[in-house]
């Protein structure tokens, strides 16, 4: 699927057609620009914080990329994060179940996968459109979170669980390791394995995929279960960073994840996209707010923060749209390459 043209514009055209390149470029420019204005932005501590901030979006976004490539969407991830956080808290807290850390981890992962599987079954077997099924799940899971916590927050997470959020291996926080591992594995899965090919085939043309004896149901079930599992991973390594587990965890998270996936170049119509683009977009979206703080533009930044973020997303969506359209006009077919 690589562009084989040898002439001068060829390389640039190829690159411009790949959203991950555009996003990467914007990310580098943003970091470079802010560093020029305020060198302390480039401190090790700050870069580390940026990675930690983006970790949950990266982790869940990688799985979401698969779902979106198959032509579906999962907007229940935020509420799922909330319900899994509550579950983890209730299981781990000595005042409630007080289970050991391995048991808590196992049950949380299992619960995440189960909800993902249910989403997948609703979409495939139940033939409920994914946006509808997961919209329903979004409200149901939020209601359940409120019910199980019952207005009392969990403030006594045992150290064995807190360490997942606050600990570090070789100076790098656990959640960053987890994000890197998830991203690494899934980039390989998407690029090299038959599963990656099947995922794109299902999203590109489900009927053709079915003729090619690819089980559409199985691929979609895998994708939804993966998002469930990864949301559980995110709950385990990112939530214990905070001392309190409350009922509002994950509100609006699904929109951030979906934004990262589409800004990262995965087509919302399915069939193409890549994990690397999602990772870069997640880092980009996570850096905007911090960058604003370091630019020191005073009170204005407070009131216009969301507008600037929105303008950024809008610009990213449009810039890519035009870059791709321009590239399409100049050379060859659409880049369907996956990262």
């Amino acid at each position: 699927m690589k562009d084989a043209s040898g002439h001068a514009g060829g390389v640039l055209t190829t690159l411009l057609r790949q959203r991950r390149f555009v996003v990467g470029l914007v990310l580098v420019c943003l970091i470079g620009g802010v560093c020029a204005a305020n060198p302390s932005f480039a401190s090790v501590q700050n870069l580390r914080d940026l990675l930690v901030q983006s970790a949950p979006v990266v982790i869940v976004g990688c799985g979401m990329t698969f779902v979106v490539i198959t032509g579906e969407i999962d907007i229940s991830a935020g509420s799922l994060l909330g319900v899994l956080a509550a579950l983890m808290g209730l299981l781990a807290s000595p005042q409630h179940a007080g289970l050991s850390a391995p048991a808590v981890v196992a049950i949380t992962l299992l619960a995440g996968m189960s909800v993902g599987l249910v989403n997948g079954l609703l979409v495939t077997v139940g033939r409920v459109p994914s946006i509808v099924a997961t919209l329903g799940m979004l409200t149901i899971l939020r209601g359940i979170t409120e019910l199980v916590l019952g207005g009392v927050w969990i403030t006594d997470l045992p150290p064995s669980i807190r360490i997942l959020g606050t600990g570090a291996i070789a100076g790098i926080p656990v959640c960053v390791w987890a994000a890197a591992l998830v991203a690494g594995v899934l980039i390989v899965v998407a690029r090299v394995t038959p599963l990656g090919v099947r995922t794109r085939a299902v999203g590109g043309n489900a009927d053709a995929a079915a003729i090619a004896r690819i089980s559409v149901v199985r691929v979609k079930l895998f994708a939804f279960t993966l998002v469930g599992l990864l949301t559980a991973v995110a709950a385990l390594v990112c939530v214990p960073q905070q001392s309190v587990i409350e009922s509002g965890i994950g509100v609006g998270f699904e929109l951030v994840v979906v934004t990262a996936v589409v800004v990262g170049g995965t087509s919302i119509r399915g069939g193409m996209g890549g994990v690397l683009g999602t990772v870069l977009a997640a880092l980009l979206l996570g850096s905007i707010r911090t960058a604003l703080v370091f630019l020191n533009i005073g009170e204005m930044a407070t009131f216009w923060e969301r507008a600037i973020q929105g303008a950024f997303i809008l610009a990213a969506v449009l810039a890519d749209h035009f870059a791709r359209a321009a590239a399409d006009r100049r050379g060859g077919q659409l880049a369907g390459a996956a990262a």
Partner: protein
Amino acid sequence: MIRTGRAIFGFHEGVLLALLAVVLCIAAWLEPAFVAPRTQLEIGTHAFELALLALPMTMIIISGGIDLSVGATMALASVVLGLLHQAGASMWVASAAALAVGALAGALNGFFVARMRVHPLLITLATLAAYRGLAEGISRGRPMSGFPNGFLELGTGTLLSVPIPVLALVPAVIIMGVIAARSVWGAWVYAIGGNERAAEYCAVPVARVKFLLFTLTGITASVCAIAFAARRNTAKADVGSGIELEVITAVVLGGTSIFGGRGTIIGTALGVVLVHELREFVGWRWGHDEIILIVIGATLIGSVLLANLGFRPKK
């Protein structure tokens, strides 16, 4: 012209009507006061924004699109209304400006979707953040109130002992229903949702229809912002937050296919009433906000599952 899915009253509407009847019967049995006409009329005002926004949203979804930015557009219009009122403009001028801003916000979405061919989910996800951010920025987060009494009367007054917002919904539903089911314009919308390319070949002005649909949604969002200001005497940047998902829930519950091409205004009206009655009744009887969420989510998924049982498409 393509007529598929333009049936006025189908199977799904039957299911909804049955469900609604069950809910109301249970309500009448457990809480007779809840189904009293006076109560129903008065709590009807709570559904105004949901019901009004659901109308153009139905058309957009039938055309195969979606608009996530309705709540943010509402906030933007609300803030413009409030700021102009504070600056001393008359309510007429302020309302007109709010309508204009809403129309502009909707037109911008429409422009990107229709002319630039950006996916509607993508562009409205972006403008959802941008419009609300803009509303926060220009209002600095402050609430604005102190609207004149004549204006507040629009939101709180009654005509023939029916609250004005509830009364206003009736012509809105009828007009939109007639447009959808009987006009050429409505037929175009169904045609685009059924098969966009085929519609184009049939000389349907696809881009123009889409552009107008989004603009109409923007205008409707500003009407909601004005109605909210009239009912609660407040204009603020957090008005309408999260309403987009409630609206989409009601529309889909009403039987409109999220893939486009299928759906009715009557279905949407029933969907809105069902969501509204469920929410109000559960709140009235059991007073648990959490349970309302679970009931509505389960009804949404359940209704589509059931509809799938009834409509098994031939392979």
